[in-house]
C-alpha cells in the first residue's frame, strides 16, 4: 500500500487539502513539511515572565513570519519612576538605538487627549507609564511587520492600556517604523529609562500564513 492508504499513488497533500488515512509518522512528516492542516495560526514563539532580574528581554528566535505579534500583560517596573517599556529591533545581534519614527495618540480617563511624534527616536514606542505601585500595571499588544524581510523596512503598530496613581488610566495607540531595509535578527523589549522589569508576561507570536 502506498502512502495515506492509497493504491497505487498517493494524492498530493497541502494545508487545507489533506486526503487519506494518516499514521502518526505521516502526521509528523507532513507537519514538518508544512503540509498538514492544523488550525491555530497564532504560533507561540516564546514567552517570558519578568522577575526583577533584568531590564530587557531579547527575542532572538523570530521563526519565519512576515508578521509578529507581541503581548505584554500586567507589566510593572522595579523603579518607581514612570517610564516606557519599549521595543528595539536587533540587527546582526545588536539592538539598534537610533533612526526610528513614531506617532502616538494618548487618551486619559480625566478627559485629556494628546498626541506625540518624532522622526528621530531611539526605539519603537510601546507601553507608557510603567512604574512600581500596587495594582498599577500596563498592558498591550504590538504587531511587527517585515522584520525578517531584508528588502523591507520594519514597521510596528501598537495599542495599550495603563493605570498609575499619578497618571489616570489611559489608552495609547500608534505606529512606528525603522526605515532601513534589513533582516532583523531579533527584537528587544526593554525598560526605557532605569531599573528592571519587575513583573508581568511578555509573549512573542508569529502569524502563520500559507501561500
Amino acid at each position, binding site marked *: 500500500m502506498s502512502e495515506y492508504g492509497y493504491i497505487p499513488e498517493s494524492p498530493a497533500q497541502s494545508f487545507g487539502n489533506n486526503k487519506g488515512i494518516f499514521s502518526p509518522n505521516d502526521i509528523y512528516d507532513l507537519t514538518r513539511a508544512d503540509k498538514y492542516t492544523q488550525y*491555530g495560526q497564532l504560533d507561540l514563539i516564546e514567552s517570558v515572565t519578568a522577575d526583577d532580574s533584568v531590564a530587557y528581554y531579547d527575542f532572538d528566535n523570530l521563526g519565519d513570519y512576515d508578521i509578529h505579534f507581541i503581548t505584554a500583560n500586567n507589566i510593572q517596573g522595579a523603579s518607581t519612576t514612570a517610564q516606557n517599556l519599549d521595543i528595539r529591533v536587533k540587527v546582526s545581534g545588536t539592538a539598534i538605538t537610533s533612526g526610528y519614527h*513614531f506617532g502616538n495618540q494618548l487618551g486619559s480617563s480625566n478627559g485629556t487627549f494628546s498626541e506625540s511624534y518624532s522622526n528621530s527616536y531611539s526605539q519603537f514606542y510601546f507601553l507608557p507609564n510603567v512604574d512600581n505601585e500596587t495594582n498599577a500595571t500596563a498592558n498591550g499588544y504590538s504587531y511587527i511587520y517585515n522584520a525578517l524581510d531584508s528588502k523591507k523596512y520594519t514597521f510596528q*503598530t501598537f495599542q495599550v492600556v495603563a493605570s498609575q496613581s499619578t497618571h489616570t488610566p489611559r489608552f495609547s495607540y500608534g505606529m*512606528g*517604523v525603522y526605515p532601513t*531595509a534589513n533582516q532583523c535578527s531579533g527584537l528587544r523589549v526593554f525598560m526605557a529609562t532605569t531599573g528592571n522589569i519587575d513583573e508581568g508576561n511578555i509573549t512573542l507570536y508569529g*502569524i502563520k*500564513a500559507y501561500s
Partner: protein
Amino acid sequence: MASNLHFIKQVEGTTVADFNMTDIFTSEFETYQIMIAKWDTANDDYTYGRIINASGVDTGSNYAYAVQILYSDQAFYNDGKSNSSTTMSYLNYCYPAGNENNGGLVLTVYNPNSSSSYTYFTFQSVTFGNIANRLYGMKGIYVHKVAETVTGLQLGRTGNFDHIVADIYGVK
C-alpha cells in the same frame, strides 16, 4: 477548542488596479482578520476599501468612517463621514520608492455574513514616505450601512497595486 486565528486563504494580486478578495467571509466565523504586510505600488496614493456582495462591488454611498492619520513629523489629521461616503477611505498611504516602505495592516471585520446587520470594521495600518521622511499611521473604523451578507472585500487606489498579498483569518 481554544480561541485562535484560523487561516482561510491567501489572496495575491499582481499589477491590478482593484484588488479583489472574493468569497472570504462565510457562516463559519463572525469575526475575521485581514493582514497585509506586502504592498508594492508605482505611485503614491491612499488606499480605500469597498465591500463585495452577491451583486458585486458596492460603489454606492453606503459607507461611514472615522479615521485618524498619525504622522511622525507633524500634527495628526482626523476625518470622517457619517453615511455618504462611496468608499472606506484612508486605509493606508502607499509610497512607491523602492517598495520597501509600504508596511502593515490589520483589518478586523465583524458580522459580514449576517444579512440582518451592518458590517463593521476596525483597522490600524502603517507605511512610510521616503521623500517626505514621514511615517503614515492610520487608525479608524468603517461601517457598511446596509444590512446584507457581505462575501468579500475590494481594495482600490489611483494607480495599480504592482504586488499585494493578503492573508485572511477567521477568529474563533
